[in-house]
């Protein structure tokens, strides 16, 4: 749940990038951090293994100005995608306000995307949160691989697999090149802000 500080007139919002391993969650944050380095006051924190896999989480905070007198601070987190780190994923989801589900569109990842989304649903339940009432954006990442002749899952199939019931906004993206990274971010921020408005005013 967003932390509203009435004394400092500040709201802290937690947005988590979730999805299967090697799907591009960290790459999303790295792109945002790199592109907006001048406007971001804090350093990005990455807790990773020696071979550059996320071990605990990545963390990137930045402020997006004021809304009705409150300074809004967005805190972006990723979870570790590897299957064995589910206990850690659950920890990172504590207090989450909005989620970006980063799916990997490579054909061989189809099952892993579905499993990861199902696990997200279960993990949120342990915090008494419901995926169906959570601000959520789908990101179908690695669209750039299409040009390189890599076999990918068509967006229509991804929508059927992951978004036929949830029906949330979805973007094809290329986190590496930055394609639709900011669109995804803007969408989840606006959805999350809309959902916490009741707490603010």
């Amino acid at each position, binding site marked *: *749940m967003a*932390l509203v500080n009435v004394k400092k007139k500040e709201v802290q919002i*937690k947005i988590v990038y979730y999805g299967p391993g090697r799907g591009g969650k960290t790459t999303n944050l790295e792109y945002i951090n790199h592109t907006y380095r001048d406007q971001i006051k*804090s350093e990005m924190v990455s807790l990773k293994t020696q071979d550059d896999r996320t071990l605990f*989480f990545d963390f990137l905070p930045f402020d997006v100005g004021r809304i009705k007198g409150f300074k809004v601070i967005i805190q972006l987190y990723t979870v570790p995608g590897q299957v064995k780190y589910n206990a*850690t994923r659950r920890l990172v989801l504590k*207090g989450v306000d909005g989620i970006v589900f980063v799916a990997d569109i490579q054909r061989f990842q189809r099952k892993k995307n579905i499993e990861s989304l199902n696990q997200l649903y279960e993990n949120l339940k342990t915090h008494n949160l419901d995926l169906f009432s959570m601000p959520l954006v789908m990101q179908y990442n690695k669209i750039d691989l299409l040009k390189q002749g890599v076999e990918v899952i068509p967006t229509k199939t991804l929508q059927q697999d992951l978004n036929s019931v949830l029906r949330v906004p979805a973007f094809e993206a290329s986190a590496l090149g930055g394609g639709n990274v900011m669109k995804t971010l803007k969408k989840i921020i606006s959805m999350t802000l809309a959902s916490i408005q009741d707490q603010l005013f």
Partner: protein
Amino acid sequence: MFSHEQLNAIDKVIKTHLIDSGVENVIYIDLAGNAITQQDNGNQTLDYMAFAALAAGNFAAVDAMAKLIGESEFSLLFHKGTKSSIHFSKVTEDTILISMFSKTISLGLVRLKVSEAVAKINAICGA
């Protein structure tokens, strides 16, 4: 959500019990990694937002380890460095008080002052 009065009262407790006793930096955070309030002795340049996120992760990981060995919780954590040390103490179910201090103040005194502050903050949160 903390009211304006509660935040003022918590800030006062942190100032009088901890900062005035020689603790360099105090951050009160929730377990989601948000900094609720922060106070220091005026000589600190800590990135407290990143610190809060890491501290919450650290505390949550240790908490999960406690459950794996059948403990309900480890309510106290302490990291000792050569120049600075960090003391973590659970306040309510959902919040932690983190105190950073140098060698000029003993761990015993920090623990005593923190336990007094925790009791007072708990009373403020319950009020």
